[in-house]
């Protein structure tokens, strides 16, 4: 009989603790909802602590590879063209005169479209004659490689 009483008492205590747990869980849920409301308000007010970073766009590697293939195709076509040797020499001569330069600088003195100059510069990069020296905003600066400088 004594064991039965003990069991009943334990059940009663467990029941009251279970009720108390439910009450506490409700309170936690209320507090979390209130915190989220305040966070949304701070974000809307422009608080720097809750400002979200601009979403980073993941580079599309397939598109990059496709674009690279198109570039490679344009480069092969230019390398076979009759105008390439003359254009190549003109760019190299310009590069020897200028330590660092942009494509647009070269185009100022040479009648060529930006698309063609871009292909020509990429072709010279592949030949290890030119290399990217630095990037400033949208401008890419190029210079001769050590190999090209030593060849002169």
């Amino acid at each position, binding site marked *: 009989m004594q064991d039965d009483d003990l069991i009943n008492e334990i059940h009663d205590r467990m029941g009251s603790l279970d009720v108390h747990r439910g009450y506490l869980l409700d309170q936690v849920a209320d507090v979390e909802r209130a915190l989220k409301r305040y966070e949304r308000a701070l974000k809307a007010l422009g608080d720097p602590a809750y400002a979200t*970073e601009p979403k*980073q766009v993941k*580079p*599309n*590697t397939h*598109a*990059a*590879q496709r*674009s*690279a*293939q198109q*570039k*490679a195709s344009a480069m092969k076509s230019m390398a076979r063209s009759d105008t390439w040797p003359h254009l190549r020499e003109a760019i190299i001569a310009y590069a020897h005169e200028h330590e660092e330069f942009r494509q647009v600088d070269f185009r100022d003195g040479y009648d060529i479209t930006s698309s063609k100059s871009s292909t020509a510069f990429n072709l010279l*990069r*592949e030949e*290890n004659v030119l*290399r*990217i*020296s*630095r*990037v*400033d*905003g*949208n401008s*890419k600066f190029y210079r001769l*490689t*050590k*190999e090209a400088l*030593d*060849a002169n």
Partner: protein
Amino acid sequence: MPTNGRVDMTLYGISDTELLAIVEDVQGPDGWTLTSDVRLRLGENLEIKRSGVGSRLAWMRRYGWLEQSHERRDMHRLSPTGEAMLANPRLTKAVHGALSNMNPAQRIAVTREIAEGGYDIRTALRRQWTRSLR
């Protein structure tokens, strides 16, 4: 380039030797280069944490082309192999002529000969091969 003005940091966007040359360009008097200096040189905004430069440099370190400073994880310098990759890539006329006259079997034999070199050169060869086969 697909990244609207910034350099595409894939192997197709910038070659290993171009990146090594930039590391050499921005090295301090002690020979060490900060990753942030390379990022600035490539026109990246340092406030944007995500960048392909750090991982490219980390892989180059793994390939044995760069060495990392014991004091700072973001400081690198060219290893002797890295320096050799930039030093004198020009083929002599004799080598160029010999390569041009090779039949396909000889070309494969030359590739095998080069590929049996050290890990660092094998990796450089594989990456150049990937970049050229577009």
